[in-house]
């Protein structure tokens, strides 16, 4: 199970490249990052395929922002967005792929 998470993490970090902002981040940056993550998670919800980890990362982002730790808040929001995007990818590809598992 740990290995699964590890593989997933590398995927997530691939998708969230660019979140390593050097300068201290602002509230505006956080809002943008959070809005993007929230939109992606909303789409995953429309596809009925949200992930618990995404929800947790969104909550973490919000909490960090409440504590005015925007570096952490942005990194959590980016992670949430990346996770949501993988879940969207999963739901979209499964629209056809589920047939492979069917017993015939």
């Amino acid at each position, binding site marked *: 199970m740990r290995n*699964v998470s590890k593989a997933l993490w590398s995927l997530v970090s691939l998708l969230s490249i660019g979140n390593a902002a050097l300068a201290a981040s602002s509230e505006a940056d956080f809002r943008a990052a959070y809005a993007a993550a929230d939109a992606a998670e909303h789409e995953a919800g429309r596809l009925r395929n949200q992930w618990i980890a995404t929800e947790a990362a969104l909550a973490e982002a919000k909490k960090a922002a409440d504590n005015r730790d925007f570096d952490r808040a942005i990194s959590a929001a980016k992670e949430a967005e990346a996770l949501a995007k993988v879940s969207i990818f999963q739901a979209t590809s499964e629209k056809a792929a589920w047939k492979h598992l069917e017993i015939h």
Partner: protein
Amino acid sequence: MRFWLITLAVLALSIAHRAGAAEGIDPATDARAFREYFVRKFPNVKLDDFANGPYALNEDMRRQWEEKEQFPPYEFSLETGKELFGTPFANGKSYADCFPEQGIGIRQNYPQFDEKSGKVITLELALNLCREANGEKAISYTGDDMAALTAYMAFTSRGKPFDIKIPDDPRAREAYEDGKRYFYTRRGQLNFSCATCHVQNPGERLRAEVLAPALGILNAMPIYRSEWGNMGTISRRFITCNSQVRGVPLEAQSDEYRDLEYFLSYVSNGLPISGPGSRP
């Protein structure tokens, strides 16, 4: 690890793949193939015994189960269910008035396709519809009372074979097909479908537990799980299954779960109701 890599590869490959136009939906053929798959996979298991889930597949577990069945831990819930079922609503009517045969020995006929609403009506849903029709508030689909009520109704149907009907109505066939799709669709961070555990790997241990075969899996519902320490409904089981693959569960009795129950019950037609059951 290997599993996940393969999964990623499948995910990647499947982008290119597109299923052709919707083939004809043929539940009867599906159900035959479904049953044959399990019978071939477990040639030593009697067909009816699939209704006993993992206990049909593992001798050590079966002994523990048989010991527990001498005085099953769900006994208290079953009694509560009988009591709740017999208690009249404020208007003097009771659950019995909402069901054919006064609700006794009919569990094997649920879920049903309701031609009026065009939707699947599960037993849990029917119980709440009954309450609402009689001016009572709906009760939680994942709570103890619903578990107790369905336990009692299942108990009165023990041994009766599942008899799920798919009427000649395109909406009914679609509901069945949607349930099937939900069953085989990978979801959650673990990228598991229901079938990953309950078709591909029944009898295997996933961490602690021996996975139950999908064939007959709802016949034992509701179940007293030692892990829960109490009785839980089908709704509760679906929700925990989705959480276990790290997906956000859908609402209890959402269309997807209702259709899933329709599919899973239909493919187990002919197998006896064994609920209420007990499981690890």
